[in-house]
Structure formats: C-alpha cells, structure tokens
C-alpha cells in the first residue's frame, strides 16, 4: 500500500469528481425532458407515433452506451453537411457529445420508467378529476404527472446511479472525469489498487448520497 500516493491523488480525483457530477446533472435534466416526451408518445393511440417511441427506447436500451458515444463523437463528424451548420459548434466538443449520448440514453430508460408509472395510475383518479369538471390538460399536468413522478421515484433513483456509472465512459472521448483521471494516475504510477480504492470510494460516496436523497424524497412524497 502506497499511502502517500493515495493522499496525493485524493484532491486531483475530487476535482475530477466535480466534472463527473456536472456531466451527470446536465444529462439527467435533458434526459428527463426527453423521457417525458417519449413516455407521452408511448401513450398515444396512433400506432406510428407509438412504434416510433418504442423503437427509440428499444435501440438505446439494446446497444451499449459506448457505441452510442462513439457514433455521436466519431461518426457524426464525418457528415460534411453537419460540419457547415451551427450544430458543429456543439458536436466538435467531446464534452457536449458525451452529454448528448448520455441524455439520449437515460431518456430511453426514463421514458420506460415514466410510461409504466402512467399506466399504473388508477383510472378512478382521472375520473374523479373529470367529475370535478377539471379540463383534460389540467388533469394531465396537475394530477397524472405528479402521481407518475411519485410512482417512478424508486426506479428513477436506480437509473440515476446507473447513469452516474455511465458517465465514466466520457473518459473514452478524452474527457478527464473521475475515471479518466484515475486511469491517468494508474497508467503513470502503475499502482492500480491504491487509485481504485480512492476513486471507487468517491464513487461509492456519491452513490450513497444519491440513494439517501431518493429515499428522503420517497418518504416526503409518499401518499400516507
């Protein structure tokens, strides 16, 4: 055990953890909107819209995140047309490519979580809203969405933790996040175990915090 290395690398890894958290929070926020959008499409009765939303979630859940990042980062740059548009400002940055991939990926999982939450809402609750003369739009925003969010909290908490682990793949497109810095230190010092303990400890700490925040929210918004 090289304690000195562990102590020295701790601040570097902690700084890198901030980048991991940034990647995580930005992609979760964008992903939540994507997920909500596709969950609503899934509830649509039009078969084409429905199939399209299902296809989106099937493709993004059936392929590894690494492939998705590589397609966006290495693949899209190949299209000449894209290079001439404003989009290129975003797509040439590995940081934004990673966020786009993460957001689309977590969006697919979130849409599944939200869809099943919408489908488990008891029809009686919606009927109660209707009988009070509330418009469909208000029922959707004020009744269905809050209940669905409460229902999906436990599953969404798991998704946040999976996504946090997923952000480690950003290191494959040159972003120095927690895993990226850990790999750099390992490959320069050849002390994998020490670095793993420190970096793994930081990840576990973040998992622990997320887990408890979700638990707190679950309690706060429980029906009883």
């Amino acid at each position, binding site marked *: 055990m090289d304690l000195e290395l562990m102590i020295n690398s701790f601040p570097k890894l902690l700084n890198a953890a901030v980048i991991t958290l940034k990647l995580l929070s930005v992609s979760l926020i964008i992903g939540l909107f994507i997920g909500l959008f596709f969950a609503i499409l899934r509830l649509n009765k039009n078969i084409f819209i429905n199939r399209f939303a299902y296809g989106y979630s*099937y*493709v993004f859940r*059936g*392929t*590894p*995140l*690494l*492939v*998705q990042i*590589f*397609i966006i980062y*290495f*693949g*899209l740059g*190949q*299209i000449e047309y894209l290079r001439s548009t404003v989009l290129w400002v975003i797509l040439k940055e590995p940081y934004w490519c990673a966020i786009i991939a993460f957001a689309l990926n977590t969006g697919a999982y979130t849409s599944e979580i939200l869809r099943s939450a919408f489908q488990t809402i008891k029809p009686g609750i919606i009927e109660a809203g209707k009988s009070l003369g509330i418009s469909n739009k208000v029922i959707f925003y004020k009744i269905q969405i809050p209940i669905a969010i409460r229902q999906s909290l436990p599953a969404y908490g798991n998704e946040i*933790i999976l996504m*946090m*682990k*997923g*952000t*480690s*793949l950003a*290191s*494959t497109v040159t972003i120095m996040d927690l*895993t990226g810095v*850990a*790999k750099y230190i*390992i*490959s320069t010092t*050849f002390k*994998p*175990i020490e670095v*793993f303990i420190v*970096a*793994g400890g930081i*990840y*576990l700490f973040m*998992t*622990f915090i997320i887990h408890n925040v979700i638990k707190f929210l679950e309690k706060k918004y429980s029906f009883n």
Partner: protein
Amino acid sequence: MELLAFGDTGWGDELFRATLMTIAVSVTAMITGFLFALIFTPLKLSKNKFLNFIANSYTTIIRGVPELLVIYLFFFGGTGAVMFVASIFGYNEYIEINAFITGAFAIGIISGAYSTEVFRGAIQSIDKGQFEAANVLGLNKFGKFFKIILPQTLRLAIPNLSNVWQITLKDTSLISVTGLVEIMRQSYIAAGSTRDPLFFYSFAAVLYLLLTFVSMKLINRLEVKYSRGY
C-alpha cells in the same frame, strides 16, 4: 456494402469473428458470475453477521463503482497480482495475462454481483412452507435443494437474470479498452483504417441489437419452460 465483404477486401469476416468473440466473452463472464453468485448468495442468506458483511460489501462496491474502473483495476492490476503469486513459487519472469481472461473475469465479477442479488431475492420469495414440506417428506439436503428449491428459484429468477444477461452483454463492449478484439474493438480498427466511423459504429450497434434481440427470444422460451404448472 463492399466494406462488409468477406475476405481481404472487406471487414465482413473480421466483424463476424468479433461477434463470436463478444458472445464467447459474454457467456464466459455470465458463467463466472454464476460461480460468484454460488459463493455469495449463501453468504448473504447466512445468519452469521460477518459473512453477511462480506457478501454485502461485494455487491455494494461492485454495483456502486463504474464498470470501466473495475476493468482498469484488473487490466493494470491483474498482471501484477499473478506475478506476485508466481514469485512466491519462485517464478520471476514476466507473465502476460490473456486479454480474454482478464476481461471475462472483470465482467464476470460485475455480473456476479447482480446475479447474487437476483438469486437472493428469488430464494427469499419462496414460501417457507416449501422448505418445511421438503423436510416433512424426509428429503435430504441435496434432494431438498435440487428437487424443491432450485426449480422454483429458477422460475422466479429467470426474468431478472435475463436483465443481468443484457447488462453483461453490453458491458463486454468496455473490454475493448484492453485490446481484446470483440465487436467494439474491431469496429474501432475498421473505422480507423477506412475513415468511415459512422458506418462501422452504426453497424456495431446493429450487431448488438441483433444479439440482444435473439437472446431475448431464447430466454423467453426458457421462461415458458420453467413456469410450467403456473
């Protein structure tokens, strides 16, 4: 299309072999995972606090730390560990471990943590009466486990194990960082030499989709087989 031709002109045969490699690594990792689950599930269910602690640490750490970090640990640390053990036996030459073994082992440990949780959940949800009935019938430990508990555990565990299989299959793409030529690595090589990353990575995505699709169909059959009588 000529990019996918078999033989020297295209990448068809290389990608086909890479797909077989992905399947081989996934299956090996899944089986390694089962072996880990076989050790850690009884520890989780044990009444001994210390054994509980060991098993809980295993599943918590592995499920809370990114897969890539675990792979780096084994990729950079595996050789050192093996050489250390070898030096105890007096062998001091450099030993290089095969990328396949390192990768399958690393993914196997990850997959094992998920399998352990699945088996624990399945065994815990079997009715107590089943254990008692097996005792009343006078079955020995062996018969009790293989004839009564295991078939019921499998029925409850298969849907969740199919999720573990999907996770394992997708995780094998991460082994490409160690240089093992599976789908992802082969696509990387092909993309680099033809300068057509969009095509090859999209094709890799199609291959993965195909693998998940086919394996889901096969697992559904197993599910039907094990839920006979329900």
